[in-house]
């Protein structure tokens, strides 16, 4: 993101009320424990091992980028964290809940934007939000939903079925659905893919708001520059295994690009 965009993002953030700190956030702004704790995660689909031993800790207020080539295991890891795909081996705790034994409680605390689509084709954005609000036991959710739809420039299509949406509109709506209940753990899988600059800006705002409220954010993306912009740490995956767990700044600039490139081979 350019400086100009950063300034715009800051201005946009200022125009929205500061989110309430998340219940899991420590008063100092640092978490008291990991909101996401993954130990020895392995996921196998038949003979194929999609994830082969990942450890991950993500704390309140922290944004972690999952980086890597196609097939590195980023999306599978995100699907496991969202409770959609069960781990073959290892333990996964989300907001203190073991995904194997307490999946529903964990899913109450997380928001997930999947890498593909993420929208029921013949339901409208409002119906998606209505269903999520009902299942997440949210009261007075309508104002927040309208605000997010406007911020992501989806206000005009609130009551249109999503089958007619462009790819970018679908991505933006998926981010809205992931973020609108202010989850403790925000999982965004390829949120910037095919999204216009205004959509990218709105997504950056959502990530910043979530971090300010004490949530932990995981962003899986191919776009290194945006990942560095949005995140504090980065986990680089290759062939289903993690090859680096570094500060996002270490991957910034040309040196960072070279370092990142060397990690992919």
């Amino acid at each position, binding site marked *: 993101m350019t400086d100009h965009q950063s300034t715009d993002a800051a201005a946009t953030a200022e125009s929205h009320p500061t989110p309430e700190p998340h219940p899991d956030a420590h008063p100092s702004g640092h978490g008291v424990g990991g909101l996401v704790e993954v130990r020895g995660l392995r996921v196998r689909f038949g003979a194929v091992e999609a994830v082969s031993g990942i450890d991950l800790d993500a704390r309140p207020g922290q944004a972690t980028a999952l980086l890597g080539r196609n097939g590195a295991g980023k999306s599978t890891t995100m699907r496991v964290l969202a409770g959609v*795909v069960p781990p073959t081996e290892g333990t996964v705790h989300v907001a203190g809940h073991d995904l194997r034994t307490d999946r529903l409680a964990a899913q109450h605390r997380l928001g997930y934007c999947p890498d593909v689509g993420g*929208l029921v084709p013949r339901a409208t954005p409002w119906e998606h939000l209505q*269903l*999520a609000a009902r299942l*997440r036991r949210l009261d007075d959710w309508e104002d927040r939903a309208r605000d997010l739809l406007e911020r992501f420039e989806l206000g005009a299509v609130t009551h249109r*079925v999503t089958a007619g949406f462009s790819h970018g509109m679908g991505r933006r709506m998926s981010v809205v659905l992931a973020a609108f209940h202010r989850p403790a753990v925000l999982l965004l899988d390829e949120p910037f893919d095919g999204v216009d600059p205004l959509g990218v800006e709105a997504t950056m705002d959502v990530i910043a708001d979530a971090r300010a409220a004490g949530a932990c954010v995981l962003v899986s993306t191919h776009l290194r520059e945006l990942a560095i912009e949005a995140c504090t740490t980065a986990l680089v995956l290759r062939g289903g295994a993690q090859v680096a767990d570094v500060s996002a700044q270490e991957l910034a600039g040309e040196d960072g690009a070279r370092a990142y490139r060397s990690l992919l081979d």
Partner: protein
Amino acid sequence: MPTGRSWTDPIADVGSLVRFRFGAARPDRPGGARRTRLLIGIPAAITLAVLLVPAAAAGAGSREGYALDLLVILPTAATAFLLLTIVSAVASGGGRELLSREHGVAYPVSPVTDHLGALLMAPLNIAWLVQGWLLLGLTSYGAGWRALLPAELLMLLFLAAATALGQVVGWSVEAVRRARYGVVAYRGLVVASLALSAWLVATDRLVDVLSASPTVHLAVAVARIQDGEAGYPLAVLGVLVALLVASVLAGIVPATLALRRPPRDEARLESGTHRPRGDARSDLMALARVDLSSVLRSVPLRRGLLTLALLPGLAALGGAIAWDMLILMPGLVASGAALLFGVNAWCLDGRGALWRGSLPVDPDLAFVSRAGVLAGLLMAASAVTIALGSLRAGLPSAAVLVALLCAWLVVTLQVTTASMRWSARAPYAADMRSARATPAPPAVMVGYSARLALSTTLLGLLFSTVAVFGVWWLSVVVAAPLLAWWWRRLGQVRRQWSEPTTRSRVAVTVAA
């Protein structure tokens, strides 16, 4: 680079698409080869049985009794088949697609290829199969062993020619429907057809019209074959071959016209707005609302359900079918409705399956919602058929009425259970936006159609037989264990769905 295309290219393209689509049945999966053998083997076995078994029965090929009666009704049954091919082609937007629009958009699939592919896909619906088997069975019994081979050759040619002719009408209507003000013109055409049918029934002219149908030559040809005459049957054969070739070629023109125009029904549905409703009063209701909307807002599903609910009912009404025959209707309608989407019920979520999987909801509740919506739609479609058919059927006896109600409940539960089992076991990514879409690959649809047709027809025949005894409680006694059995099977499928590995496999597949 040469860009000129030979006239044989579309045929070669169809071959490639068939290999691609039939390959989607995944014989490489564990147990996949056995499943593929079953999928192809069951319909093939049924076809062989209806071709051979009636001819070996007592009285087959006789010029009197039941064999003669069947030859007399053969032209009417053939006309009904022709109407069915027309309605199927019209309801499916010209014809089912061999390659989905989304997958085919990057490839130069010509309208000719699309037309030939739709012709191949036409038999893959339950009504076509059941009616086709019925005609082959009637011919087999009517002709007997001696005339079997040439008679069935004529009938197979008729099935092919009628299908190609239906396709011509289907593409033509679709070309009109996709034109400016086409939807209005199409609705006017439907109303006019219904009015004409009602007038024919009300003025008792339906039988006269059916008697004047050219299909009467089929029955005459079969009779002449039995007499050892060759000239007349050969002339009929020639006409059928000419009709088949002409229809296949003629279909190219309206197909090209239709496929060059934008699909207005789908565009209207995707760009229209839906007024928000109040919050649901329970989680189940909230899930069921989205599930039901996913069906009713899909062009192929809405159109298919309407056709399935109305067409058999109107046919029963026109033919003044008796109550004991109406017992067979719920099975036919429920099977057809299940083949629209039920056999791959989770595909309704499409790419939203992963998001739905991340929502904090008991998987049992999601299962109950999906199975409930499916069962409700099957029951509603059958109810419309029964209601229409009952209008001219007089007052039923208590035994027949109870048998009908029991058959209705049993086939609904059986079809729902089978559909939910297949949906969990073999999910497919299917985009149900296009009016021409099917929920599973062609080879799989053949297997599902045959299995549903066989099981629901047998159940219908069982309750028809029970009704003959005239004792109302006998149907309840027969239905109770069947309901208990399939309720138990449905419970097994629900437990299978509650396994995270099953749900994740389904979600990842349908969202792909």
